[in-house]
């Protein structure tokens, strides 16, 4: 296993080299995170007189993330992208499947057993107003994870907090301020500093910028990309904004009803989507370009995303698909292919 850059924060040049190495040798290095056939099912309605239904929020998701790499997950609300993120960091318990982090299996661990792994994987949340403790100063917020994991001496933790504040672009003089004194963008920087406090190798970002003003979003995206360069971080980046994911992620998975229906390199996926759902999703996303918008063809999807408590014999997208054929309803298509994987019997080639 490559000892990743996050440990060697002081030496910038070295760090980015080490961080980049696994990308170039991606076929040979063991992945930092491996998710295999992950399922998260929740109890649904019913259960008194009728049979309780099962909400299949995540229904067989597999992917790898290598050190220093960014994987994006996109999809509409209810597709399971956030639940996938929460299952990986242990905030919800997977129903089945495996999550491997740095060679250790971490799914279903107790809080205590999970604790040492939290130095490897951290999370940034969507709402910078709800995800910070209003009673903790910025300094206390950033040092708390270090205290819990027993990193550094108490005095060094303060220095470390100041260093992290500078790293994420916060004025170190704000060490003793409270979250309510900050704007949304600054709070998100505090959340990022807190995640970095334990020197993780992987950060799970669940819609990290969607609650921010447009002019602030770019600041946070730039910060995340800059930190990746400096520290060799890997990201699992979850967002509904396709342009943002296209910009930040090297590989992208498209989710629909709890499954990944297409996965490819970011540039490839957005230029040549092959799954009919990905095609429709991209065609629906507007571009900030009136001239292009006037001439673009839209693939209009009929209906809405069906309820995730249905059980499908075949492809869950079949009801809304314009390329549906009889075989689609018989067996579910598997995610297949080399670098550009598609779960569709009639994918665009």
């Amino acid at each position, binding site marked *: 296993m490559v000892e990743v850059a996050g440990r060697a924060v002081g030496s910038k040049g070295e760090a980015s080299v080490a961080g980049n190495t696994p990308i170039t040798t991606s076929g040979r290095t063991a992945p930092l995170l491996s998710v295999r056939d992950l399922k998260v099912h929740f109890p649904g309605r019913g259960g008194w007189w009728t049979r309780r239904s099962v909400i299949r929020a995540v229904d067989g998701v597999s992917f790898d993330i290598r050190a220093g790499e960014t994987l994006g997950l996109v999809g*509409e*609300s209810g597709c399971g992208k956030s639940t996938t993120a929460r299952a990986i960091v242990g905030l919800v318990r997977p129903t089945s499947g495996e999550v491997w982090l740095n060679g250790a299996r971490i799914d279903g661990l107790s809080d205590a057993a999970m604790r040492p792994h939290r130095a490897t994987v951290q999370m940034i949340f969507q709402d910078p107003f709800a995800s910070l403790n209003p009673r903790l100063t910025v300094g206390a917020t950033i040092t708390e994870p270090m205290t819990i994991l027993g990193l550094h001496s108490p005095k060094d933790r303060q220095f470390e907090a100041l260093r992290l504040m500078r790293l994420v672009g916060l004025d170190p003089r704000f060490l003793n301020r409270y979250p309510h004194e900050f*704007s949304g*963008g*600054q709070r998100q920087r505090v959340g990022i500093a807190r995640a970095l406090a334990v020197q993780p190798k992987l950060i799970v970002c669940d819609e990290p910028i969607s609650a921010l*003003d*447009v*002019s*602030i*979003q*770019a*600041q946070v*995206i*730039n910060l995340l*990309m*800059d930190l990746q360069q400096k520290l060799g971080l890997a990201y699992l980046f979850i967002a*509904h904004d*396709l*342009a*943002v*994911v*296209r*910009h930040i992620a090297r590989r992208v998975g498209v989710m629909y009803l709890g499954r990944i229906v297409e996965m490819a390199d970011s*540039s490839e996926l*957005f*230029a040549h989507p092959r799954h009919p759902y990905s095609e*429709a*999703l*991209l*065609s*629906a*996303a*507007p*571009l*900030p*370009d*009136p*001239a*292009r*918008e006037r001439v673009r063809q*839209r693939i*209009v*999807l009929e*209906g*809405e*995303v069906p309820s995730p408590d249905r059980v499908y014999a075949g492809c869950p997208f079949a009801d809304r698909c314009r390329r549906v054929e009889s075989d689609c309803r018989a067996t579910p298509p598997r995610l297949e292919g080399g670098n550009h994987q598609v779960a569709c019997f009639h994918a665009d080639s």
Partner: protein
Amino acid sequence: MTQPVLDVRDLRVVFDTDDGTVRAVDGLSFALGRGETLGIVGESGSGKSVTSLAVMGLIPRPAGRIASGSIHYGGEDLLAASPRRLREIRGRRIAMIFQDPMTALNPFLTVGEQLTEMTRLHLKHSARQARDHAVAMLEQVGIPGAGRRVDDYPHQFSGGMRQRVMIAMALSCDPEILIADEPTTALDVTIQAQILELLKQLRRDRGMSIILITHDLGVVANACQRVLVMYGGRIVEEAAAGALFEQPRHPYTEGLLRSIPRWDGHSTELLRAIEGQPPNMAHPPSGCAFHPRCPYQLPRCSSESPSLTPRDASGDGGSKACFVDLATIAAVAAPAASTAAGSAPH
């Protein structure tokens, strides 16, 4: 523009807060043409939503008040109209769709009850007529099984369908003007595409005039003919959508356009973010509200507030509120910028 259907002049809306008096809208003038979709773009606190509330006569009192200005609709100043007259116009002639349909619909009434309430009041429909009309409206906005669903409660609809219910409600009296405040922000992109298509269809088929308030530049590019960009309670730029996106002439507009990634591009370089924070409107910056964040600021920008002037010599290409002439700067900077632009073929 032909005779505008709505003419807002020098509108000023202030709010009294613990932090002092906030000038949420500070001298706003614009006209809405018949059959036009006008986009209003801005960040939180820019005054875009307050503008729409002012037009609807919905500024919450006593905290907020309209300090000055006029809002002319068909030769009548809405700000001088009696509450009774406003009630006749609101919903009947000028209707509004809100961002969050779950909070804008009454959870205790079926959607049918909420739809018929309006038409019985404004169009004097009988109960029977009103119900038929409600079903027809639900059908028109694309709700499957409208005959059954008219008796459902809001919580029985999905987010996209609820937004359609709200649009059906806004349209049920066939208004001349529709104000849509972030109508698709809470929706997924495929549903957003359906709703935007519906708005376009209404504009085409009924000649409806639409004010579309949004922070999403993609939505603006898709749906609007003309755009107002607001910052700190004022219009900083106003132009036809094509001209605004191709040649922004205000540094804030330019900054916004440069700071958003595109999913069809190849750019992996850093986005050019606008530095700093949006202004605190209780303590707005002196001079131009954007000057603390502006890369082009001149000494006078911190003391003088620029007024709207034509964007180009012809005078019909829109207007901007900036002392700097971005057109000449773009011409000077072009050779250096062309190398960077080469990597992002748009």
